[in-house]
């Protein structure tokens, strides 16, 4: 090749070189953006671990707060959050997925369906404090649930419903039409098609929506503040009609409302809160990866 007299037809041109520079530039730009995004998250985590880490102990996790919440543990808040999130999920996941299945698989594309879609998108944009007031009006007063886990969880559920619907809808839509047509052409009903082909192939996407919802629900404060979460209540709830403490509200309280709180305490609560969310996310992601591995396309 070395003494070849011909020109190399694959040789790099001036244009290739300048294009490569641009290519490199954008690559670096996008990479930097990604790092910039990760940086605050990493910093927050580092600070929480550094300041809150020493607080974490068996006693902190599993005992009641004492001395006006300036000492002791966070057990009632921890359990309360688990209650609130579970009941909210129990309500919003079946409802949201069912609505998404209807919209994606059954509904015709007409003005009514479009209106519903519009309403869902708008619902996602409603500020959480508005949901809180709605919750007070509807669940606490009108339905007479009082300030209770039920009222708070329903409020949380309503608030996160649009996320579940939209993400489930998207993942149902991602299943290629050809699969449905293949099923129908063998005489499968709509439900058989959904049950055997569409749902199994979109469940990983639906789960992503649920993960998002769990994270959001765990951290919300405003919607539960007036509907069911208590300032200080050192007992564990026994039914959904009880009030309860919650981690997010407890964090707000110990960092702004109570005097003489040791400096590490709020950080400890925040660390537990974030730890809970991350653990749930990690578990769901692992589950999702497992499901995706079983997906056939």
């Amino acid at each position, binding site marked *: *090749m070395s003494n*070849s007299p011909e020109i*190399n*037809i*694959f040789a*790099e*041109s001036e*244009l290739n070189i300048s*294009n490569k520079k641009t290519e490199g530039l954008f690559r670096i730009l996008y990479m930097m953006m990604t790092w910039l995004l990760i940086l605050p998250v990493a910093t927050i985590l580092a600070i929480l671990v550094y300041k809150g880490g020493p607080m974490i102990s068996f006693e902190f996790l599993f005992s009641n707060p004492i001395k006006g919440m300036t000492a002791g543990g966070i057990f009632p808040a921890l359990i309360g959050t688990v209650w609130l999130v579970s009941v909210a999920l129990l309500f919003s996941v079946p409802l949201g997925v069912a609505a998404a299945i209807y919209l994606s698989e059954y509904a015709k594309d007409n003005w009514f369906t479009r209106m519903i879609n519009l309403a869902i998108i708008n619902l996602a944009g409603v500020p959480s404090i508005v949901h809180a007031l709605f919750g007070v009006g509807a669940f606490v007063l009108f339905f007479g649930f009082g300030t209770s886990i039920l009222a708070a969880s329903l409020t949380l559920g309503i608030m996160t419903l649009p996320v579940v619907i939209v993400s489930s809808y998207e993942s149902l839509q991602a299943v290629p039409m050809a699969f449905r047509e293949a099923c129908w052409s063998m005489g499968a009903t709509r439900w058989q098609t959904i049950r055997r082909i569409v749902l199994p192939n979109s469940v990983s996407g639906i789960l992503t929506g649920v993960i998002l919802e769990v994270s959001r629900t765990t951290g919300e404060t405003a919607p539960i503040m007036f509907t069911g979460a208590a300032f200080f209540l050192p007992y564990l709830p026994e039914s959904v009609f009880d009030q309860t403490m919650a981690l997010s509200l407890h964090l707000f309280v110990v960092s702004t409302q109570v005097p003489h709180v040791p400096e590490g305490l709020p950080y400890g609560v925040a660390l537990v809160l974030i730890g809970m969310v991350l653990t749930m996310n990690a578990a769901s992601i692992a589950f999702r990866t497992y499901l995706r591995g079983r997906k056939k396309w």
Partner: protein
Amino acid sequence: MSEVSTATTGKYSIESEKLNLWYGSFQALFDVDLRIKKGIITSMIGPSGCGKSTYLRSVNRINERLGYVKITGSIKVMGQNVYAEDAELVQVRKQIGMVFQRPNPLPLSIRDNIIFGHRLHTPKSEKVSVKKEDELIENSLKQVLLWDKVKDNLKRKATELSLEEQQKLCIARLLPVKPAVILMDEPCSALDPKGTAAVEELIWELRDNYTILIVTHNMAQARRASEECIFMLMGKVVEHAPTDEMFVNPEHEETADYIEGRYG
């Protein structure tokens, strides 16, 4: 070195030597030695899964995007190794055009589709006049026998054309960048008989100016539309001969079996 000095003036457009290719641990090509002549149409036939697409995709280096592909041996196009250190990927792709099984016009107007490649390879500083672009577009569309059909609505979306017209467009958009070789992977299999005939006719028209390697499942098409024919089986080349000879008097039994439709 004698072979090298005949490089771009030589007889062959694509030469592969001891080409082996693995998808992960699955070997798809075995010692493929081929010399495909310049300025003619060569067809490649063989049962599904025998590695025809794989061969084409390693010539223009599309396969290497898949992280798990391993290649040994060499492929030269116009006498130059496409996998050489100093071979610029973008230039390799520019010199080796490809037409796919399903027509894949870009979601742009007909006009923008045709001029897309040309714009990619023109420096910004070099102003190309609208008139020059129009000429290129007209020329390309004329070569694919589409000009009369679309000349009055070049602004239309290309995706609204019929499949046959889309496939012609996909061939036409390669022409402004003047590729040395055009690879076609079953370009007619998504078309009806009329569309197939029309695209075949056009491929035949192009043969004087371009070197074409076309994969087909259609014996009649291979026979009608190519000067030389390659028969592959399970990742190996069984026979490579002038088309007339192969179809009248195949050298290998497997070739005869396949041509007569005993498997495939």
